[in-house]
C-alpha cells in the first residue's frame, strides 16, 4: 500500500480512531501490529510468511541472547540467518544472471524467486535487534529491550519490525531507540503541529516534486536519451537527482509525521544533503539511518580507524561497496557504492583548508552535488554501457535541438528542492528569522494547495525496490 493511496488514508484514519479510543487503550500495540500487517500484505498476503519467520527467529534468538548462554554463537547464527534471507531473496537473480546460463535449471530457479518488498529494511532491523541485545552490558538496558516473558517479547519485536510508517522503506530503526518508546500513548501528548509540518512537506516532496519530475526523467532511458542535446541531458540528470531526493526524503518525512501522530519518534533520515561541503558530510545527511547502521554494525566492528590509515581506507571502501550492493541486486549498485567509497578516500587524502571562505564552500558544495548527481546515473541506467553512452552523449550531442519543454519543466520542479536547501543555509540570518520564517504558514498553505491541485501521477517510491 502506498502512503499516497486512498486505501492508505482510509486505513490510517480508522487505525487512528481505534488506537486512541479509551476502550482499546490496552490494545494499542496489537492495533498497530494488525494495521501494519494489512498495510504490508494488502496486495500480496503471501509476503507475511517470510516476515513472520524473520520476526519469530530474531525475537527468539534475541531472547536467548539476553537470558541464555552461548551469546556470541547465537548472535553470529542470527546475523548469518538474516544475511542468508537477504541474499536468497534479493541477490538470487544477480547470482543467476552472473553465474548461470539462461537455460540452466538452477539459474531459472534462482531468477524465479520473488523479491519481498522491504526485505532490506526488515532484515537490517532484525540484525539491529540481535546486536543491540548482545551489546547491552547493563541489565537495566537489557530489560528495556527484552521482556522476561517470551510471548511479550515476540509481540514487541513484531511491532518493532512491522510498525508501518517505517516497514517498507525505513528509516531503519535501532532496537535500542524504539523499544523504550513502547508504552501507552495519549492523544493529548501528540505534537500535531510538528506532525502536520512533516506530513505536508513530505507529501509535497513526493506528490508534487518527485511524481512530476518522474515524467521527464523517464527519458533517461536507452535509446531515447541519444536523441537529446547536451543541455537537456544535463537537465534530466539534475532532475533525477532532485527526484530521488524528493521521493525518498518525502517518504521519510511522511513516515516521521505518521509515527508522531501515533506517539512514536522516528529518527531523522535526511538533513538537507545537497548543502554538503564534503562527501563525508553528505553521508551524514543522506539516508542517515542506513549510514549510521553501516557505521555501527559494519565499519566500526571491522576495525574502523583503529588499525592504521591503510586499513581504514580499505574498511571504508568495503563498507561503501556493501552499502551500494544493499540498494539493489545489480553490479551497478556495487560500483555506485565503490565510487562513493573512492570519493571518501580521496577526500581524506587531500589536505584540508584551515578556514574555508564562502567561495571555497560554494565550490565544494557544487563539486559534491555534481559527483553525487553523476553517480545517480547508475541508479537510473543499471547497464554500464548505457550509463557510459549517456555520459558520452552529454559531450557529443551539443549540436542537437534543445528540448525546451523538458528543460523548463525540470527546472521549475527542481526549484523547490533547491529553495528547501537554500533556506536551510540562510536560516540563521536575522532577516530570515524575522521575516521569512514568520510566514511559514504561507509556505505550508502553498504546499498544501499544490498537493491538491498539482500532484503528479502517483508512482511507487523509488526506495521500495530496495
Amino acid at each position, binding site marked *: 500500500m502506498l502512503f499516497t493511496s*486512498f486505501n492508505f488514508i482510509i486505513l490510517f484514519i480508522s487505525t487512528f480512531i481505534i488506537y486512541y479510543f479509551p476502550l482499546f487503550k490496552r490494545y494499542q500495540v496489537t492495533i498497530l501490529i494488525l494495521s501494519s500487517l494489512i498495510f504490508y500484505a494488502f496486495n500480496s498476503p503471501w509476503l507475511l510468511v517470510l516476515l513472520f519467520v524473520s520476526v519469530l527467529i530474531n525475537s527468539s534468538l534475541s531472547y536467548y541472547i539476553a537470558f541464555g548462554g552461548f551469546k556470541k554463537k547465537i548472535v553470529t547464527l542470527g546475523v548469518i540467518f538474516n544475511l542468508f534471507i537477504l541474499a536468497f531473496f534479493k541477490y538470487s537473480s544477480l547470482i543467476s544472471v552472473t553465474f548461470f546460463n539462461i537455460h540452466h535449471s538452477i539459474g531459472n530457479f534462482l531468477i524465479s524467486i520473488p523479491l519481498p518488498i522491504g526485505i532490506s529494511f526488515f532484515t537490517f532491523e532484525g540484525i539491529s535487534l540481535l546486536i543491540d541485545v548482545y551489546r547491552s552490558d547493563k541489565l537495566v538496558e537489557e530489560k528495556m529491550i527484552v521482556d522476561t516473558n517470551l510471548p511479550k517479547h515476540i509481540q514487541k519485536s513484531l511491532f518493532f519490525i512491522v510498525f508501518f510508517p517505517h516497514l517498507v522503506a525505513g528509516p531503519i530503526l535501532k532496537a535500542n531507540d524504539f523499544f523504550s518508546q513502547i508504552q501507552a500513548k495519549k492523544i493529548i501528548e501528540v505534537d500535531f503541529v510538528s506532525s502536520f509540518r512533516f506530513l505536508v512537506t513530505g507529501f509535497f516532496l513526493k506528490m508534487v516534486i518527485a511524481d512530476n519530475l518522474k515524467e521527464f526523467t523517464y527519458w533517461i532511458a536507452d535509446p531515447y536519451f541519444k536523441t537529446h542535446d547536451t543541455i537537456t541531458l544535463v537537465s534530466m540528470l539534475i532532475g533525477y537527482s532532485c527526484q530521488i531526493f524528493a521521493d525518498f526524503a518525502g517518504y521519510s518525512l511522511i513516515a516521521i509525521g505518521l509515527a508522531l501522530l501515533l506517539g512514536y519518534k522516528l529518527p531523522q533520515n535526511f538533513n538537507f544533503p545537497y548543502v554538503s561541503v564534503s562527501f563525508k558530510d553528505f553521508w551524514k545527511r543522506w539516508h542517515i539511518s542506513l549510514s549510521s547502521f553501516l557505521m555501527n554494525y559494519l565499519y566500526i566492528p571491522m576495525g574502523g580507524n583503529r588499525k592504521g590509515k591503510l586499513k581504514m581506507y580499505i574498511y571504508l571502501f568495503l563498507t561503501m561497496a556493501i552499502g551500494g550492493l544493499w540498494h539493489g541486486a545489480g553490479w551497478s549498485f556495487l560500483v555506485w557504492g565503490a565510487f562513493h567509497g573512492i570519493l571518501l578516500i580521496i577526500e581524506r587524502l587531500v589536505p584540508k583548508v584551515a578556514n574555508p571562505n564562502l567561495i571555497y564552500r560554494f565550490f565544494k558544495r557544487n563539486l559534491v552535488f555534481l559527483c553525487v548527481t553523476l553517480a545517480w546515473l547508475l541508479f537510473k541506467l543499471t547497464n554500464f554501457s548505457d550509463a557510459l553512452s549517456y555520459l558520452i552523449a552529454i559531450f557529443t550531442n551539443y*549540436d542537437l535541438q534543445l528540448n525546451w519543454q523538458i528543460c523548463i519543466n525540470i527546472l521549475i520542479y527542481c526549484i523547490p528542492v533547491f529553495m528547501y536547501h537554500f533556506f536551510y543555509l540562510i536560516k540563521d540570518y536575522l532577516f530570515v528569522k524575522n521575516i521569512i520564517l514568520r510566514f511559514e504558514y504561507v509556505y*505550508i498553505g502553498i504546499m498544501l494547495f499544490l498537493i491538491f491541485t498539482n500532484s503528479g501521477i502517483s508512482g511507487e517510491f523509488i526506495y521500495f525496490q530496495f
Partner: protein
Amino acid sequence: MFYKSIISFCLLTLVYSYFINKKQMLSGCQNQNQDNLIKAQNYLFEQKVAPKNVVIGTSLSCHLLSDSVNQLFNLSFNGSSIFDGLDIVLKSKQKPSRIFIETNYFFISKSELLSSQLYSPYSYFMAEHFKIFRWDNQPIGIFISNFNQIGYEIGQRHQRFVEKLKYKIGYRNTKTSPNNSLIFRYNLSEQVKFYSKFISKKDLNNKLRLLKFQLLKLQHYGVDVVFFEMPVHSSLINARLSLSIRRIFKSKVFEKYKFIPVDTIHNYITNDGIHLNEKDSYTYTNYFDSIYLNSY
C-alpha cells in the same frame, strides 16, 4: 500555525478557483500520461451532451485529428488499450451514437495506471465537482504552458547561436542524419520482431471474450460499432500479426459490424513504424473523414 496554514490554503484555492472558472486558460498538460487523463476527464465531465461519434484506440489512433472532423471525439490513449476507452464510454452517463474501434492492438490489456488515477474515489469525486482539481487545470502546468512559446523561441535562438558558432570556428557537421533516425531504426526493428510473432491463444481468447462482452453492452445501449485499422509502416502491413488480426475481425463473430476498409491508396510515413507522422496524420484523417461521411 496549523489554522493559519489552512486559511492560506483555502484562500489560495478560492482565488484560483475563481480564475479557472472565469478565465479561459491554456491547457495544463505537461506529459503523455497527463494528456491521457485530461482527455478522459474532458470526456467524462466536460461534455454536456455526449458526442455523436467517438474514436477508441491506442496511441496509433491518437494521430487521428478529431478537431478537423465534425462531431468526433478522440478517446484514444497513449500507451493504453481500447478497453480503457470502452470502459470510460460504458461508465459515462450519456452514450454516443457511434463508436469507431481501432483493431491494430486490440489484444493489449487495460492500463492500470490510467484507471487507478481516474477512478480513485477521492480524486474522481473532486474532479467531477470542482474544476480546479482536474488534470487540465494544474497551476504549474498552466504556468509552464505560457512559457512554452517563449521557450520555443529560446530554443530556436540557441540553435541559431550554435550554428553561427560552428560556422565561425569552421566546424562541419559530419553526422549524415539526426540521431532521431537511430530511434526510428530501433523502434522499427522492434516492431518487425513483434509483428512476426503470434499472440498467445490464451491471451487472445481472453481479450476477444472481453471485447465481445463490451460490444454486447454497447449494443444494449444502442451504440453503433465500426471497426477500423490504422495504417502502419509498409513492412508491417502484411506481417504475420497484422494478417492474423484481420482474419479474426473477418470471422463470423464480427460479421455484423461495419469496417472502414484499410487504405491501400496512400503510402503512409511513420515516426517509428507504427505512429503516423504529422503530415500523414492529416492524410489519414481526411481518408477516415471521407469514408465516415460517405458511408456512415
